[in-house]
């Protein structure tokens, strides 16, 4: 468990590294250099998301997939986004790199400040230069995320060639280095191999190598182990953890597996129906959860020490329709503790016990009816 491992020094290293590599020949580079000049590491957050709202304009109506989501991320920190399917985790991550399919999706409101840069104000070309360079992305399914017609060596070096302007051979050397770093034996021999010659776990290692090719400051991992079996899951997570510590990369880990979140993250955001319902340091959220949905999630985990083959507990009901969420607390239809107040207004994220521990529930607010 590296939950409480301070990764701060690693974060500092990441910033210095960036300093040297800023290309001031470009407009974006100049702006970046200026910002870096008066910003010490840790003087600010790596990522500040404010009131991010992403909507999908479908035939049936506007889907509020992500609704006024705000959170911060420190340099080198690992943040978990947890929640059940369709609660807006992936859309949040895709919004951060502006890869929401448009149409029908659109980021309608909010601000995303990444390392001092307002991502939503960047041009398409500037955004492209940021993707892969400063923000790496690991997708869910390694079986389909690699191009079947290109050798993996090419796919790994593509990012370095695109962003760092490396020559074919220099990028190739870098790719070999990355491949051995992600634990692929005889890396140089395997550069010319095609994705179908790799197993699922190996492919996810290749995806990680691609994501880390340009030494990004932020790694977005969208359910990186969902498509893998359990033993490989552990290896891939170990790899992400050790490499992010080594490179000083901040990680946003999207998962519906609370065990993974507990093992990997410094902090956790619990999302429900497009909103963050609870956020805090991982220990606070897991030990002292203050939102009925978080309890539900924790309760539905299968336990090893259960004596009888008990049925898995579930949260009854379905997540609400995000086309018209209404004014009530979005979890109220499924909540055991629901009272009239919950049906007339939606609670705000308010502080709870612990540093930065917030929850969105009337019942657990001071003076609430839930103990």
């Amino acid at each position, binding site marked *: 468990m590296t939950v409480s491992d301070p990764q701060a020094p690693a974060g500092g290293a990441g910033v210095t590294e960036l300093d040297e590599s800023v290309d001031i020949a470009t407009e974006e580079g100049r702006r970046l250099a200026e910002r870096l000049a008066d910003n010490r590491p840790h003087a600010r957050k790596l990522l500040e998301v404010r009131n991010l709202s992403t909507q999908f304009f479908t035939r049936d109506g506007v889907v509020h997939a992500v609704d006024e989501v705000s959170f911060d991320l420190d340099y080198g920190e690992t943040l978990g986004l947890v929640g059940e399917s369709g609660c807006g985790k992936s859309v949040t991550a895709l919004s951060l790199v502006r890869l929401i399919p448009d149409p029908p999706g659109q980021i309608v409101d909010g601000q995303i400040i990444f390392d001092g840069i307002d991502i939503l104000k960047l041009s398409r070309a500037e955004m492209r230069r940021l993707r892969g360079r400063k923000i790496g992305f690991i997708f869910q399914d390694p079986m389909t995320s690699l191009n079947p*017609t290109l050798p993996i060596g090419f796919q790994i070096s593509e990012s370095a060639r695109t962003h760092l302007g490396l020559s074919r051979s220099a990028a190739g050397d870098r790719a070999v280095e990355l491949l051995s770093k992600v634990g692929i034996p005889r890396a140089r021999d395997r550069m010319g191999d095609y994705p179908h010659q790799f197993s699922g776990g190996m492919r996810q290692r290749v995806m990680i190598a691609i994501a880390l090719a340009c030494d990004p400051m932020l790694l977005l991992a969208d359910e990186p182990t969902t498509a893998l079996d359990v033993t490989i899951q552990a290896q891939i997570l170990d790899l992400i953890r050790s490499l992010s510590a080594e490179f000083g990369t901040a990680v946003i880990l999207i998962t519906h597996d609370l065990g993974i979140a507990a093992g990997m993250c410094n902090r956790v955001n619990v999302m429900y129906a497009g909103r963050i319902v609870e956020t805090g340091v991982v220990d606070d959220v897991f030990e002292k959860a203050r939102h009925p949905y978080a309890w539900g999630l924790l309760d539905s985990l299968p336990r090893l020490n259960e004596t009888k083959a008990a049925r898995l507990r579930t949260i009854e009901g379905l997540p609400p329709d995000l086309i018209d969420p209404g004014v009530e607390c979005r979890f109220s239809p499924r909540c055991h503790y629901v009272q009239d107040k919950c049906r007339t207004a939606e609670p705000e994220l308010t502080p709870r016990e612990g540093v930065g521990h917030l929850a969105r529930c009337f019942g657990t607010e001071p003076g609430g009816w839930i103990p």
Partner: protein
Amino acid sequence: MTEQTGAIETGVVLEKRRSAGLWGDAFRRLLRNRLAIVGGVLVIFLAFVAVFGPLLTPYEYFHQDLEMVVANNNRPLTPMQRIEGFDRVHVLGTDELGRDLLSRLMDGARISMMVALVVQTVVLVIGIPVGAAAAWFGGRVDNILMRITDVVWAYPDLLFIILLGVAFKETFFGQALDGLLLVFVAIGLTSWVTMARLVRGQLLSLKETEFVEAAKAIGVSDRKIVTRHLLPNATGPIIVAVTLGIPAAILAEATLAFIGIGVQAPRASWGSLVADGNAFVRSFPHLVIFPAVAIAVALISFTFLGDGLRDALDPKLKGKQ
């Protein structure tokens, strides 16, 4: 597929079967298909004749052996026919003007192969960009490009080619390559539609795949996504379409030549040889039979090869057979 042993296992597999890549696998599958081999060998043979034909032919295609025809009472010579007083023989006979049929057939192979090349080049040059642009940009661009494609599709090919032929007949363009260039380009201009639709369809589905999303996520530009990630994935179907498009183009040229459009005398394509021989079909059937056989063989061999390629490149068959 367990990971602990995965590394070692794949290593072993690799020793056995050094990465041949996708194309290597496809080629191996192609070699197992007997019809495709027959087609391929015939295609290579035709190509060989087309390239080196002029060095191998017994006569120039326009050479008239009038002495022998006159000695034969002004009648065409039949294959291997011997005439008293001459020590030479025409293997496949001659036409009524004493032109050696074998030489003309070999020159015809040249024309057919040129049709294959030029028409398919035109098809690729127009079809791929149109299809790719329609698929990638979508929306209005897609709509406009595809409506243009529909119009070209709906317009009668023959009428278009005849009009073009008439309009440009006296210009340099119309005269180039004995009038053939015009026909080739005209056929190409009417056949790119299928390619454009194919490429669009392929790219539309490829566009939604996760590796394209992954490429976007590492900041690859749109142009490179299309050229490096999308089109290579559509190469298989494109190759098949080209191979199967060739017989169609050869047949189109032969049809046009038969009705007298395109190649100008004294040069003759297989189609015009059939047309010329048609006048004597009862008394001298060899003048029709040999060119017709040549056309048939060319069509069948390309079709066999194309079918074989389609099976070999079909991703659904991967690992089978």
